[in-house]
């Protein structure tokens, strides 16, 4: 195709799922493996249309275990890779997710949450997988999980998820939900170069000197692609700096501690929240995903009624952005955490709160979104008006 000047950006009307594909392609994703599941299927479908035209590869695997295995393999061969699923498929992915953590393979895993457990309510919204994203794979491990609440975020945070994944050599989970995935909103896609796109660290040393899992000041060892002459070993076993299995305590602890440290050392880059009218807020709503949309509206309505309400929207769910939440807890009269589960994130807020303020919950698990009215009513009750 001849090179043409890019057309001036015109607004598009995209679903969250479609915007995620655009974000992934913008970030340089060129490999996608998936297995159909509501409400994530559109991501696979649009990927299957667009990736091949860009010289990339889409493949529909035999299940979600295979999908994650394939994207790990593709990433090791040097290609930015992604998969997308919903609860049942996310459950199947857990073992290979741990592999990607242990072997430090960049990849992005989207979970468009629907109500569970089990097959649950395939077409209804939920936020029931928040703790699964944190602890679903076995063993003590760090993880990064981002939450999206708008079509724009489906685009921009997918780009960010790839950046984090590549920069820190870790799987990054994006938690979307049925409402965000299927809501159509106006979006102007940024031109190439407008958003930052980052690449994985590459070895500077020649193969003879290369030590694949050596610690670095950033805690992230460089990652050459298979076939580039480095011939290193990748394994899910605990390994030494050369990548070979070890059972020596003096090699085990440094590896596992480094996996945590490479994340904790970069909290400032990884942890993100969005504040709305929080400066003088006395009543703070802490919300994420589709519920944050209702919460924003409820906060605006509360303000109109003279209540000093504010919204702290969590974008990074894991590692829990304690640093960004704590200062608010010391200031406000009460916190309300509405969510579509029985309190998976509010328990995190309470853990951090340590009695600083009152933390209340608002939970729905019936497949319906929490409405602005429900949140407003609770804010009114909390204010005593």
């Amino acid at each position: 195709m001849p090179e043409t000047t890019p057309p001036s950006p015109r607004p598009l009307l995209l679903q969250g799922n479609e915007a995620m594909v655009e974000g992934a392609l913008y970030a340089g994703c060129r490999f996608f493996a998936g297995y159909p599941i509501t409400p994530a299927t559109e991501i696979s479908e649009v990927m299957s249309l667009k990736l091949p035209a860009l010289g990339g590869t889409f493949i529909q695997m035999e299940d979600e275990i295979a999908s994650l295995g394939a994207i790990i393999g593709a990433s090791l061969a040097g290609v930015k890779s992604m998969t997308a699923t919903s609860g049942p498929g996310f459950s199947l992915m857990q073992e290979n997710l741990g592999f990607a953590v242990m072997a430090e393979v960049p990849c992005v895993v989207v979970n468009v949450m629907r109500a569970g457990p089990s097959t649950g309510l395939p077409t209804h919204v939920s936020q029931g997988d928040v703790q699964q994203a944190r602890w679903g794979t076995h063993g003590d491990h760090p993880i990064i999980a981002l939450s999206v609440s708008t079509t724009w975020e489906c685009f921009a945070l997918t780009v960010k998820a790839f950046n984090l994944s590549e920069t820190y050599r870790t799987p990054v989970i994006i938690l979307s939900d049925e409402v965000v995935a299927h809501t159509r909103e106006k979006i102007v896609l940024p031109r190439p170069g407008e958003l930052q796109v980052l690449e994985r660290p590459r070895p500077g040393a020649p193969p003879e000197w290369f030590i694949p899992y050596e610690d670095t000041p950033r805690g992230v060892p460089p990652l050459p692609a298979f076939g580039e002459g480095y011939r290193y070993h990748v394994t899910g076993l605990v390994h030494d700096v050369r990548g070979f299995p070890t059972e020596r305590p003096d090699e085990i602890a440094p590896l596992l501690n480094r996996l945590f440290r490479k994340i904790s050392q970069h909290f400032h880059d990884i942890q993100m929240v969005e504040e709305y009218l929080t400066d003088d807020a006395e009543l703070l709503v802490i919300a994420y995903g589709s519920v944050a949309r209702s919460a924003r509206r409820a906060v605006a309505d509360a303000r109109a009624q003279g209540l000093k309400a504010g919204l702290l929207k969590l974008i990074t769910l894991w590692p829990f952005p304690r640093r960004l939440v704590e200062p608010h807890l010391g200031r406000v009269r009460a916190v309300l955490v509405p969510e579509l589960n029985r309190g998976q994130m509010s328990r995190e807020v309470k853990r951090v709160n340590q009695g600083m303020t009152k933390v209340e919950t608002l939970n729905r698990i019936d497949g319906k979104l929490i409405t602005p009215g429900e949140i407003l009513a609770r804010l009114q009750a909390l204010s005593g008006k």
Partner: protein
Amino acid sequence: MADVTKLIHKYLRHEKKFPHVWCPGCGNGIVLGALIRAIDRTGFSKDDIVLVSGIGCSGRMSVYVDFNTLHTTHGRALTFATGVKLANPRLQVIVVMGDGDATAIGGNHFIHAARRNLNLTAVIINNSTYGMTGGQYSPTTPYGARSATSMYGNVEHAFSIAELAVTAGAAWVGRGAVYHATLLDQLMEAAILKRGFAVVEVISHCHTLYGRKNLLGGAAEMMRAQKEAAVRVEKAATMTPEELASKFTIGILADRDLPIYTQEYRKIREAARTALAGED
């Protein structure tokens, strides 16, 4: 050093991974030798080979060899290999699995990989048991055999891995045994050179666990039994089912030219480019 030993050493990693985990006399070492000799004959550079393995005694093979090596999760080696190959079709991807790895937990991936026909080589070391976990029964443990979880005799019936691969659509299927070292070398080489999904089932022995439980003797006795039970595919064609009852065939079971996934996918890329060219 004898020339063959020198050759093997050229492909082994010498820093820190030896001694290996395998029992003395295990067939895994013979398979590794055959694989290395075959790779050497094909002339591929070490940098171009990706050796992917599953989990099990057999799965430990990847750590010892000086290629790009990927030791995956139990049963899933072919899925990782699929990603590697699709992302960089220039790489020669060889996958080593155990019988439990490939046909129990990984059975689904195995048949779909065969059906898909990527240009991959799959080596399955069939020792009729789960070696690494202590000799439990696997999908290839014979009916009636004793294992750590079938001490009263196995009531399940075994898969024939090579025949399964033929039926699932693999482009090339061969079966050898560790006793027949020369044939094994040839099969490995042919499988690597084959354009398409090529499967080598290697009949091996786990004398420490399976052999002991079934009073089959040591490694030497079990290899002798392979010699007695093996029948060349060509000869088997002239024998009756009764004559073949306690035998297994060795040789090439299937060799067909089928469209290769990555070539087919190139057409998809063209179609997508044409279809999307009108849009911006």
